[in-house]
């Protein structure tokens, strides 16, 4: 079924905007709960070892302290498979520095924090291992993500071609440890009473949180309610339950009938809320002199914690982006005594495409070919790995549209050719791609009332992306009614189960099930039928997309950057970014632009600033606040232009959408790095591109 677009494609201001601007939109921590207690954690000061003693006397006797929670008195929990990081206060083991090892529950957050500083722990420390480098010998092929895409690809005879190709490239690129740092930190409020458990939490998916909580505590799902009405950003860090949720639940269990609130500090965000792990990637390309790729090899290594296997799957886009008769990918991971990394905006694809697209720029230079022309010459007709046709693919269209808008034609390819008042000027280009994902398992209920109003219920999440608005537009078109007739309710497990807001799958997944429910409702009402007096309610399950096995489903884009590098100090400025994207139907051009622009800005930040510095002696990231871990400030962001091509894709889902949450960050860093090379003649292969790498010595 394909839905006719009426509201879809219209610019509609955010439905949730006025409440947020006025400050009346409630976030998890702000829920007005009766007489809440507050929690503050104690964090380990070793990176590996055992707790052999804990002295809570001073903390416990502090006025206002209700309880000091520790491994001895904490309720026992089950640990769901593959979620070892949620094993909080269940043993004496310390798996990383800053792990939660105790918690103080008190009348105020100030008392809790102060008392937490009085808890004394004694450790038996063991030598720790926290450094990732390419010549380790303990990498393995990750298994956890292998169900989603192959961890190893072998097509043709890569090695033979790499040794014989006329043009050969062999480069190593590295990306830094990056933190999501949403504006709203991770926050939880929990109330455990006879009626069950109520949890207010800042999350990308209430259903997933409920499932984890019921498994942890062996609860009946019917007795757990998870509410997350507004979320102040997440970027992947709130897609799963994190240790802070578990610690809050343990605390709430100890003070029944009393709500417990817990908000991570910014410093704690650097050990409890996931991060994008650093990657080391090797790209080998063999090509004809005209730039046509003969062999392409991409290997990527990253590190996970000792608790959970998470591999930053940088090689996923490799098989999608360019035609290569001989193709090889290798995805490897090792484990260290560090906090657990997790998905972060375009996981894998974002750092992976940094390496791929820098290598393509280097290949263009080697071959003396314009980098846009090089990409056009390597455009595949079918998906290079699966052999499936693309449902739609407009990479060339994006490159060409962008070239025209950016005035690429007049670019002098010679590096270090433009110096304006002491600033070296350069431009660069890179491709973007992301898979068009649809998650299974969602359900939706639509209730029609005789007054012509429709209530749509689904436990979806709006983490600040505009879901509320865009999903209302989808529902309106699916029902064939004006947007004003639709009342969308999300963010509550009281509504039907929904997949999480991850992998740019939100609109594609929730939209599809809403379309299904709307279709059933319209069938029940019949042609021209009126709504019965008692109303009519339909609940639908997520339909299967039969095209998913017949087509390769991906979005594409092209990013252009102009940079200025101070010839003396090495300071880098990016006055201009342009992104041209082909992502199927754009449901709301305003919120979609914000998503893509935000992604590009985060890509700029990744290119120039973001780097969590881990001190190997201690095992923790030392720059653990926003003064020392830099993200781009307003002054760093120049003119950012976003343009979307019209793209009609009948195969992805009934709306024809592909998702825009992550596409925007893919390729930005490469476009900037390539522009820095063009400006200076210096190729920086290690992010971030800080001025010490460019200063004139």
């Amino acid at each position: 079924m394909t839905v006719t677009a009426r509201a879809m494609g219209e610019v509609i201001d955010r439905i949730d905007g006025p409440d947020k601007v006025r400050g009346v939109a409630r976030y998890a921590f702000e829920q007005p709960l009766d007489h809440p207690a507050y929690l503050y954690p104690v964090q380990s000061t070793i990176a590996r070892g055992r707790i052999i003693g804990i002295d809570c006397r001073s903390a416990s006797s502090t006025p206002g302290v209700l309880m000091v929670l520790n491994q001895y008195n904490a309720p026992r929990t089950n640990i769901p498979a593959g979620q070892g990081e949620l094993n909080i206060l269940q043993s004496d083991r310390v798996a990383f520095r800053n792990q939660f090892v105790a918690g103080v529950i008190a009348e105020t957050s100030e008392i809790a924090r102060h008392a937490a500083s009085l808890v004394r722990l004694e450790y038996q420390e063991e030598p720790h291992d926290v450094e990732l480098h390419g010549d380790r010998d303990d990498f393995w092929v990750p298994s956890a993500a292998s169900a989603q895409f192959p961890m190893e690809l072998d097509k043709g005879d890569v090695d033979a071609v790499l040794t014989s190709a006329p043009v050969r490239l062999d480069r190593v690129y590295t990306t830094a440890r990056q933190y999501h740092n949403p504006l709203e930190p991770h926050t939880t409020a929990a109330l455990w009473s006879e009626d069950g458990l109520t949890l207010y939490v800042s999350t990308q998916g209430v259903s997933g949180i409920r499932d984890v909580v019921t498994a942890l505590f062996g609860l009946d799902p019917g007795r757990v309610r998870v509410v997350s009405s507004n979320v102040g950003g997440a970027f992947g860090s709130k897609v799963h339950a994190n240790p802070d949720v578990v610690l809050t639940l343990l605390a709430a269990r100890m003070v029944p009938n009393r709500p417990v609130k817990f908000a991570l500090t910014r410093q704690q965000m650097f050990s409890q809320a996931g991060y994008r792990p650093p990657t080391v990637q090797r790209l080998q390309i063999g090509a004809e002199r005209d730039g046509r790729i003969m062999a392409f090899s991409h290997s990527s290594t990253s590190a996970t914690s000792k608790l959970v296997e998470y591999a930053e799957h940088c090689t996923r886009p490799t098989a999608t982006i360019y035609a290569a008769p001989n193709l090889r990918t290798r995805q490897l991971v090792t484990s260290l005594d560090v906090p657990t990394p997790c998905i972060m905006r375009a996981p894998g694809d974002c750092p992976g495409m940094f390496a791929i697209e820098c290598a393509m720029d280097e290949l263009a230079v080697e071959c003396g070919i314009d980098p846009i022309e090089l990409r056009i010459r390597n455009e595949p007709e079918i998906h290079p790995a699966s052999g499936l046709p693309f449902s739609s693919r407009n990479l060339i269209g994006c490159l060409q549209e962008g070239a025209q808008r950016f005035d690429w034609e007049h670019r002098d390819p010679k590096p270090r050719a433009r110096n304006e008042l002491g600033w070296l000027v350069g431009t660069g280009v890179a491709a973007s791609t992301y898979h068009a994902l649809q998650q299974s398992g969602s359900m939706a209920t639509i209730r029609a009332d005789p007054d012509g109003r429709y209530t749509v219920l689904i436990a979806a999440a709006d983490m600040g992306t505009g879901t509320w608005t865009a999903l209302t537009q989808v529902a309106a078109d699916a029902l064939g009614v004006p947007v004003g007739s639709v009342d969308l309710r999300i963010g509550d497990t009281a509504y039907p189960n929904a997949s999480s807001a991850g992998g740019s799958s939100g609109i594609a997944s929730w939209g599809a099930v809403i379309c299904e429910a709307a279709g059933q409702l319209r069938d029940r009402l019949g042609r021209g039928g009126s709504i019965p007096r008692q109303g009519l309610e339909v609940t639908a399950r997520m339909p299967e997309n039969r095209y998913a096995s017949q087509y390769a489903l991906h979005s594409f884009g092209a990013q252009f950057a102009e940079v200025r590098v101070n010839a003396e100090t090495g300071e880098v400025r990016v006055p201009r970014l342009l992104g041209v994207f082909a992502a199927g139907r754009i449901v709301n051009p305003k919120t979609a632009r914000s998503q893509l622009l935000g992604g590009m800005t985060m890509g700029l930040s990744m290119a120039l600033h973001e780097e969590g510095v881990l001190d190997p002696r201690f095992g923790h990231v030392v720059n653990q606040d926003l003064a020392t871990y830099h993200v781009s400030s307003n002054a760093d962001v120049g003119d950012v232009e976003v343009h979307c091509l019209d793209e009609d894709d009948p195969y992805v889902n009934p709306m024809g959408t592909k998702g825009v949450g992550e596409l925007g960050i893919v390729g930005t860093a490469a476009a900037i790095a390539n522009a820095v090379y063009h400006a200076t003649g210096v190729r920086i292969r290690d992010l971030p591109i800080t001025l010490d790498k460019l200063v004139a010595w």
Partner: protein
Amino acid sequence: MRPFRYERTDDVAGAVALLSREPQGAFLGGGTNLVDLMRLDVARPDVLVDVRRLTSDRIEELPDGGVRIGAAVPNSDLAADPLIRTRYPLLSAALLSGASGQLRNLATTGGNLLQRTRCVYFQNVTTGCNKRQPGSGCSAIDGYHRELGILGISPACVATHPSDMAVAMVALEAVVHTLGPNGERSIPVAELHRLPGQDPEHDTVLEHGELITAIDLPPLPDGVRARYRKVRDRASYAFALVSVAAILDVADGMVRDVRIALGGVAHKPWRARIAEDALRGGPVSEERFRQAAEAELAEADPLPGNAFKVPLARNTIVRTLLDLAGPDLGGMAPPPASPDAPDPSGPDPNAAERGLDPNAPPAAAAGAAPPQDRTQPRHAAPPEEAEQPQEATRPQEATPPQDRAQPRHAAQPQDPGAAQPPNNPGAQPQGGPAIDPAIMDPEMESGPEPSGPPA
């Protein structure tokens, strides 16, 4: 945060007396640094004596043409003050390059001078730091020290002082007035902060209970040009990797006088006297600027992670002096091009910020707001990064500071016989081309310790 008492007194003397009896107490100014450190358990005062309403929050002209800044003047007000923007645009530029608008609204002038290092180990109580906990060892020397010191460091500490304002004040030869348990005294800002030595727990020479009450800026000689150039990891809201406050006085191609202060390189704002001595009295040339910078930095003792600061400081010193010397020497032409607005003809990176200010100049000229532009209300955020070389305007007795109709060079010299505070060495106003020997002679700079209250 540990529990603490909060105290207020009626006057400065009462606050000093109170804190003198509280060995673990601290003065509370704007709180933008101290309160953060208390949350982190780095600062553990058991009593806070609020001085925000005690010291002056006014900026006043002094009889000698200088300016007195009350210690409680917020950084925002100081940066936007017409007197400061006219006579000491260097100071305005330095202030506006620091922190954020919100922090500058809250931070006081006295407190800015006394902010602590942002070394990541100092700010984390689970790691050793000799400054925070004497004898616990310096974690930075063998750890993360990218932003830390290259000059005057010791095996005990490589911290840097984070203030931009203080760097400009050192170049301006400002003097702080204090009231302490032993009475009043005056200290040149250049001598306020210490080198770490073996006791880095002491940032400054102030005694416990000694409160900064005011800062005096001596008048600048006629015709000198000044500039603050800050180099950092992002375009705004970051501490300096290297900053340069430079004041240059050139006549007939010769350096009559020069003052250079460096930020981001040492435990204190670093007065580059070696470079100054190398330049003073000699011809103006890029080669000499470079030699002078290299002579100063020959003393540098960088660590592996901050060795880049040596060429960065050299390049920044040379470029700042070139820009001050003018386009003939390859300085930026046109001079008002702000280095933080990389594309003079392109989009202004701070446009959004400036867009909040209805009185801000148009974006294209915003980076180069001329001192004539005084239409902004005092509390409106002035454009950031207005750090183009500017000639300080001479004080004008008959002209209220709000009136900027007069050309900048038409200032009347003040009566050279006007009374001068005894604690302002090198602050004598100049009429005509004559040079104040106090400015020319570095010996007199560090000469007799000034004493006694200002006139």
